[in-house]
């Protein structure tokens, strides 16, 4: 491996029925010189089983996750998609950014755009980052716009499970839940929208080390995603 290469391990979740596309390189220049050196993609089911490692051209601009997952697996369950990129730090002084879009076919819900969660790397020595990023939080709007809320968590560790605590806040009340995920396992953690007449105001994820994490909201009945966002680093 060249010492000039940097690495970034990002991840997202694909759900059946969605048109879901990831912009592999957001900072593309006019000459398209900005490209990854390599991109390995791996698909995992909720129990951490490796479903497939489909080949992807690292020069690709837009990755169609639906076509990728349907072409590589028969599953209709949620799939954790792991993007393992190598890039030249002279081309991407910080890191390449992956942005994504999805929309369920036939849904009246608005398409959602989001930043793909960087889980390993992306904070190289040269940036001098000092803030811890394994304590994360998300503040909900008080006017409800989704019927159900939850966290999608994935463990990208290779050898050891991750223990995390999820805290949901309702007014002055805090509801805690322990979560343990084995390597490459993923789970959806429900967050009740109300508790004791108080609306869900905030959620925190505290883990020994960083998880792949998104906060999501779904419509009642259809389950259509109307919120899919990363949490924010917890800072005092």
């Amino acid at each position, binding site marked *: *491996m060249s*010492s000039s*290469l*940097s*690495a*970034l*391990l990002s991840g997202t979740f694909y759900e059946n029925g969605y048109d879901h596309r990831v912009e592999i390189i957001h900072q593309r220049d006019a000459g398209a010189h900005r490209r990854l050196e390599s991109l390995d993609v791996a698909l995992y089911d909720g129990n951490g089983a490796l479903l497939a490692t489909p080949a992807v051209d690292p020069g690709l601009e837009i990755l169609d996750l639906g076509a990728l997952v349907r072409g590589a697996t028969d599953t209709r369950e949620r799939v954790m998609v792991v993007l393992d990129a190598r890039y030249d730090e002279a081309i991407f002084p910080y890191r390449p950014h992956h942005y994504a879009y999805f929309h369920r076919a036939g849904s009246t819900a608005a398409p959602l755009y989001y930043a793909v969660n*960087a*889980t*390993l*790397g*992306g*904070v*190289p*020595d040269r940036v001098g*980052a000092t803030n*811890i*990023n*394994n304590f994360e939080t998300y503040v909900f709007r008080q006017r409800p716009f989704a019927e159900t809320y939850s966290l999608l968590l994935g463990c*990208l*560790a*290779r*050898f*050891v*499970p*991750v223990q995390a605590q999820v805290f949901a806040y309702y007014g002055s009340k805090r509801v805690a839940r322990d979560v343990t995920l084995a390597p490459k396992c993923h789970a959806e953690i429900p967050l009740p929208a109300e508790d004791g007449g108080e609306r869900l105001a905030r959620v925190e994820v505290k883990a*020994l*080390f*960083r998880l792949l994490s998104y906060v999501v909201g779904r419509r009642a009945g259809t389950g259509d995603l109307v919120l899919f966002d990363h949490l924010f680093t917890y800072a005092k």
Partner: protein
Amino acid sequence: MTTGPRAGAREPEPGDEILLCYCTMVTLGELRAACRAGQWPLRGKENTGKLCTGCVGDLLYCLRQCGVDASL
């Protein structure tokens, strides 16, 4: 011309190529070799596990497997 491992050279252990720390680019093989030589942490790689924190659990596990009494 002979290609392949030099006489006496160690074959890579399984997993040696695994990238352990995505921030400092330390592989599992480099960590194992450094631990065997009593040179962990490697010079210039002192921040391994301390930046994005995503590999901390794996790092501690691998260090302990290598006989290093590691903790946070």
